[in-house]
Structure formats: structure tokens, C-alpha cells
């Protein structure tokens, strides 16, 4: 059974040069006298179709601006596509940015709860994993301190720890492994592998070709918002790597 299914998905963006607001005012003023000025539209994603089954790991490659982040946002539910069909069974958790929902004036403890429910847990479910999160992040002594007194490493550790303790069906990773010091990174990688094993589907965006070929069984090469190639052969990644100037 397909867990993730995309059919002919397209996301259209408007391209307005100059400041958005001034354009808007100008447009509404000039529209009294003449026809509305045209706004340039373009498809950030177009005709994307893919199906993923349980156990699949999808690696997405492509140049900057190819639509990788837009595609992740569609999978994550942050963006609703303008055309096509999206069906994502289960809850998708994105590791786009650890601790996106953190608030500097809240304590570590309060932030764990806030972040946990943002990921779709209930408060009770956060209760159950709370101790694990704290001990994994090694923040027992600072858990009642406001987050703004944390170092950036501590904050990253906490964010990572919450993210990997939330059990999700679909895991979306955008360029990870940049957290904390050397020891913590090692621990993080190990935990990540464990986390990946229990997720039904993993979707990875990375510029690290080795990581992608090692990890994934399906590959998607995006170019200018469209599928250049999609399939289960790692040759796609090599072709992409060689295409780069």
C-alpha cells in the first residue's frame, strides 16, 4: 500500500519584482487608469509524480532553486499544491530546522512540551518521553532555565532530542548532522539510524552524495521544479553529480 502518493503535483508562485507592498499599492492605483499590470507566475514544482511504499527511503538531489524545499513542504503539509493530488498516510515529521517552535523566554521543560505538541503529540505522550528527551540532550541541570540562556549547542541538542524522540511515520530530513560537539554528533548519528529504522518512510535532501547513495533506495533528481529522473537506480545520483560543472 502506498504511504506517500503524489500525482502531477504543481505549486505556482508569483514573481513580483521590487517590494511587494509598493507593487500592490501601485497596481491598485494604476488600475484605475489602465489595465492591471501583469504579475509573472512560475511553477516552483510541476508535474511531480511519485509513489513511496513502506520501508522506502527517498533521496532528493538537485541544484539550489530546483524545488527541493518546496517539495518537502508539500510532503510536510506546510504548502498545499495548486494542482495535482497528494496523499500522505500517517504523520509527517520534518527535521527541516530543529526547534522551530522554541520560545526563548520559556524554560527547557516548557519548550519540550511546546515542541512535542507541535509535532503532533498529545501532552500525555510528551509526559512519557520527557525523561528520555532530557537525558539524551544531557540538559538535566538546565531544564528549568529559560532557553535564552542556553548556548546554541545546548539549544540544538534539545531540538534534536525532541525531534528524534517523537515517533513519526514519515521522516523528512533536510541536510542534518550539524548539531553540537563531536561526541554529541556521534551519539546523534547513532540515534538517527535507530530513528530511521522505525520510521515507515524517510525522505532525505542532501548535497552529500555518499550519504544519499548509502541510505536511499529511491532517487529523485529535480531540475527547475520538474522531475529530471526518478527511479531506484543510484545511477541517477551519479548522473546528477557528473552533470554539475
Amino acid at each position, binding site marked *: 500500500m502506498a504511504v506517500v502518493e503524489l500525482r502531477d503535483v504543481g505549486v505556482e*508562485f508569483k514573481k513580483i519584482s521590487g517590494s511587494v*507592498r509598493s507593487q500592490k499599492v501601485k497596481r491598485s492605483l494604476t488600475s484605475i487608469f489602465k489595465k492591471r499590470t501583469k504579475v509573472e507566475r512560475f511553477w516552483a514544482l510541476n508535474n511531480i509524480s511519485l509513489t513511496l511504499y513502506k520501508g522506502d527511503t527517498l533521496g532528493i538531489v538537485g541544484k539550489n532553486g530546483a524545488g527541493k524545499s518546496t517539495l518537502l513542504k508539500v510532503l510536510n503539509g506546510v504548502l498545499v499544491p495548486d494542482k495535482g493530488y497528494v496523499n500522505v498516510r500517517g504523520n*509527517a515529521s520534518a527535521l527541516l530546522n530543529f526547534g*522551530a*517552535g522554541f520560545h526563548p*523566554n520559556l524554560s527547557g521543560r516548557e519548550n519540550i512540551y511546546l515542541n512535542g*505538541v*507541535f509535532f*503532533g503529540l498529545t*501532552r500525555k505522550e510528551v509526559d512519557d518521553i520527557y525523561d528520555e528527551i532530557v537525558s539524551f540532550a544531557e540538559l538535566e541541570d538546565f531544564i528549568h532555565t529559560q532557553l535564552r540562556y542556553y548556548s546554541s549547542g545546548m539549544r540544538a541538542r534539545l531540538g534534536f532530542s525532541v525531534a528524534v524522540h517523537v515517533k513519526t511515520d514519515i521522516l523528512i530530513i533536510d541536510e542534518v548532522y550539524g548539531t553540537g560537539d563531536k561526541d554529541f554528533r556521534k551519539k546523534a548519528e547513532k540515534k538517527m539510524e535507530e530513528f530511521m529504522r522505525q520510521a515507515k518512510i524517510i525522505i532525505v535532501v542532501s548535497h552529500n552524495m555518499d550519504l544519499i547513495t548509502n541510505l536511499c533506495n529511491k532517487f529523485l533528481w529535480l531540475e527547475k521544479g520538474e522531475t529530471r529522473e526518478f527511479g531506484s537506480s543510484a545511477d541517477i545520483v551519479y548522473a546528477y553529480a557528473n552533470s554539475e560543472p
Partner: protein
Amino acid sequence: MIKNLSFCLKRKDLLKQLVISKLIVSQKDFLLGYLWWVIDPLLLMVIYWFLIGVIFRRGGPDYPLFILCGLVPFRGFSISFSQSVASISEKIYLISQINFPRIFLPLTDVLTNHIKLLFGFLVIFIVALFFNVRIGLHYFYLIVPFISQIIMVSGIAMLFSVIGVYFRDIKNLVQFIARSLLYLSPVLYSIERIPVRYRDMYFLCNPIAPLLESYRGIIMYGKQLDISLVTISSLQTLVIFFIGYFFFVSNEKRFLKYI
């Protein structure tokens, strides 16, 4: 629509946690913390009593309580209203990364402010004791205008939170409207000042007015609920709420891309 509702219901813990977080944050940096929720209405009461009771020699002996009954609920409304324009536009970093019911953002602001409002009511009750007002079981009627206010303000907040995404400068306009409404609503003066033949019109145009009248009638004059007031204001509340809700839901997809 149904999908949207069930998504909200599934994630209701998030709303709870957002409200708790906001309440914690809003007092954490202050020396007096939660006490401000009590001090704030008292200070305002003193200022307006000084202006109107002492300088203009109007109002009568129980004027401080009179102001408080109008001012406290009105502040709950006006603060929520002014904050709503920013409730989405200032949370872009969240919306662009996490999928959650975006409608919770304006609702969080409204609920937080109305929880603080409860402390304001506590102040009213204490001041009422000083003015020898009969406090009794009829005070439970206050729940009706209070719930009505929350629902109505939610509708307004949903509407303006979306508008605030498209036009950032609406903030200035909203602050002006909120300030003007203070003088256009029966906060500092009694509804008796409005000629009888315009009164229905007045209640119809200013949805806060019937609510403020209900609060004041119950607290100060020991009245029961006025059925006609309740009817007007529940109709207004429902209309405003559904306008806000439909506007939000139908624009959600669009503003996600806009931000």
C-alpha cells in the same frame, strides 16, 4: 471544511499548550509577574476616574466601579483585536516549517487575553464589595456575555489575522479603531446617554455595546439577563464568528504561499 475541523480537534493539545506557553511568557520578565493582571485594570480605573470624576465632576459616587465594569471587558476585546493582526504574520518561521492548524494562532491570542480578563473580573468583584453592591448567585449570568465575547472576538481575530498577512500596515489602522471604539462604546458613559430611538441602531452597529451592557447590568444593578440583549449579541456573535472562520479557511492555502 470538515477535514479542517477534525484536524483542529485532533491537535487540541497544541492549542492548550500554546495558551499555557503564552501565559507563562507574558509574565516571566516582570518583577510583579501575574500581579500585573490585577494592577493594570486598577490603574486604568484610577486614571479615568480622575479625568471624569474629579476634573469633569461627572459620574456620581459609584463611578469607579462603573468604569471598571466597562473597561475590563473592553480591554479584553481591544487587546485581542490589536494583537490579532500580528498573530500570523509574526509567526512565519513556524508556519513555514511545521504543519499544524494555523487557526490556533489567532485563537491562542484571544484565549490568553480572556484568561487574563478573568483576573480583571476578580478585581471588579473586590471593588464591588467596597461599593456595597449585592454580590450573589446572579453573577453566574456573567458567563453568558463572557462566552459570547470570546466567540465573537475569535471571529474578529481570525479575520484580521489573515488581513494582517497581506497588509502589514493594517496594524496602525486597527490600533486606531480599537482606541476609537473605546469612546464609541458604553465604557465611560452609560447607554442612557444614547437617545432611545437610536439605541437599537447603536447596539446593532457596535457588537461590543450589548455585551458591556449585560456585564454592567449584572454586576452593578443586580439584573438578570436581558433577553433582547442576549438575542442581539448572540446573533452578532454567530455572524461575526462564521465570517471570520470562513474567511480564514478559504484564505489559508493562499497565505501559506504568500508568507
